[in-house]
């Protein structure tokens, strides 16, 4: 362990405190207090104290009173009672009111104390792991709830649509009408496909570890450029890229690709079809160990009132195009992983610009 375990010892007799500190200070970081207010003050200043030893018999408040009080205000440290006074009443109180972990009898031996510290520390670690795991679980449950809700719309929705279409197909004789419907069915199937693919992205972002490599933004952008070349041509959207990288950049490449790809996909998707001057622009600059990426489009824009929600899971600002509500949420998760930032500015009917900054590791 790199850092010593922090321990607080409360006793009204300074000699006891000195003795305790003298024999344990090499292996542990010891804090001492001669009264309850002093002890509480110490706990407020040192939030990482793991174990508290306290004498039972003190003027003013007893050890049990002290433990009972901090059980609510400072629940994390493990409480150990230290006393020569062994009547059954105080033991019962210490257990029932103070929820103590151990009871060490005075005069104590160093071995007793060290053993108690070891056990208490294990207990503390297990407890804090549990609380971290609990938080993670709570987050996972919240997202699971959103999933359950979206499954009905994003998976069952297209499926029942296709089922309805199959049902209707029995009645259709006209080939043109059938073709029109097949076209719409294809769109629904694509939507399902996109959904499943983004779900995979979502999963790998939540679970995967960082894989740090040297990143060449020219390579990434060139690849994306060839991917979007067809889209650019068929939809008559000018696609301009500019990369300035004169220094080494280290980070995980997969989330970076995912971020740029998602932003580009949106930039192409949400163009105003009727507009004459459609364009998508990507600018990447790597400077002072930081990459700044701009993705700018001349598309339909985002309502100002929606801007706060666009990074939420399953939020969709617009129903005109096929979308899963995963895209920008995945972008945000990827940035969280890379310790990056995103900003958005948008003017309705004029276009949207996303600015992403990612630090080199």
């Amino acid at each position, binding site marked *: 362990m790199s850092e010593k375990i922090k321990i607080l010892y409360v006793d009204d007799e300074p000699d006891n405190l000195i003795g305790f500190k003298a024999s344990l200070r090499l292996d542990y970081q010891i804090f001492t207090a001669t009264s309850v207010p002093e002890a509480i003050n110490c706990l407020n200043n040192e939030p990482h104290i793991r174990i508290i030893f306290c004498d039972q018999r003190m003027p003013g408040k007893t050890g049990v009173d002290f433990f009972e009080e901090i059980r609510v205000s400072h629940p994390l440290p493990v409480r150990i009672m230290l006393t020569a006074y062994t009547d059954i009443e105080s033991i019962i109180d210490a257990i029932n009111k103070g929820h103590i972990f151990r009871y060490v009898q005075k005069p104590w031996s160093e071995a007793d104390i060290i053993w108690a510290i070891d056990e208490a520390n294990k207990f503390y670690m297990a407890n804090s792991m549990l609380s971290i795991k609990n938080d993670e679980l709570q987050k996972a449950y919240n997202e699971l709830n959103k999933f359950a809700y979206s499954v*009905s719309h994003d998976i069952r929705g*297209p499926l029942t649509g296709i089922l*309805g*279409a199959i*049902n209707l197909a029995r*009645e259709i004789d006209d080939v043109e009408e059938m073709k029109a419907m097949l076209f719409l069915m294809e769109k629904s199937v694509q939507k399902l496909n996109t959904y499943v693919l983004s779900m995979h992205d979502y999963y790998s972002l939540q679970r995967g570890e960082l894989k740090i490599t040297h990143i060449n933004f020219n390579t990434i952008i060139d690849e994306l450029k060839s991917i979007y070349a067809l889209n650019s041509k068929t939809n008559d959207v000018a696609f301009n890229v500019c990369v300035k990288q004169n220094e080494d950049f280290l980070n995980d490449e997969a989330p970076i690709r995912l971020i740029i790809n998602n932003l580009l996909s949106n930039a192409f998707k949400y163009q105003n079809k009727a507009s004459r001057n459609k364009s998508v622009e990507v600018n990447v600059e790597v400077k002072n160990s930081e990459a700044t990426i701009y993705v700018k489009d001349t598309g339909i824009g985002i309502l100002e009132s929606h801007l706060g929600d666009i990074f939420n899971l399953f939020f969709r600002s617009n*129903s005109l195009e096929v979308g899963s509500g995963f895209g920008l949420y995945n972008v945000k998760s990827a940035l969280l992983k890379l310790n990056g930032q995103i900003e958005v500015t948008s003017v309705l009917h004029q276009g949207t610009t996303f600015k992403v900054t990612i630090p080199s590791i």
Partner: protein
Amino acid sequence: MNITFSFIIIDDSELDCFVTQKFLERSNKSLTINTFQDAEDALKIIRESRNKKSKRPTIVLLDLLMPGMSGFKFVEEFEKFPAEIQKMYRIIILTVLSSNSHPIDIHRVLNNGTVHSVIEKPLTKEKLISLLDDIEPGQ
């Protein structure tokens, strides 16, 4: 079938709009059918219908989960309209149902009386016929 309704279909899925429309057309060639992928657009049309006299009663087939304005929000807004507009419309919810998705919300809109009934997707010929039979005596 002697139907004197017109229809409004509100569904964010293009395919669902198409399928529902075709089913309706097959049941009666002379129906007026308007489809909307955005509930807000439909609401606007209904709001403006106040000025048109001697309109046929209109059945609104409404999806619930939609980006932008949801079906619930649509019903909420619709309930703010004056009674003379409201009585010209019958709202029928046509949606994907699952055991855990918003049963309470559905009960709420049904209890208000604004919504006539709920039909589970996918729409079939049989469901449509029973729906039309069901709604006619009430008018």
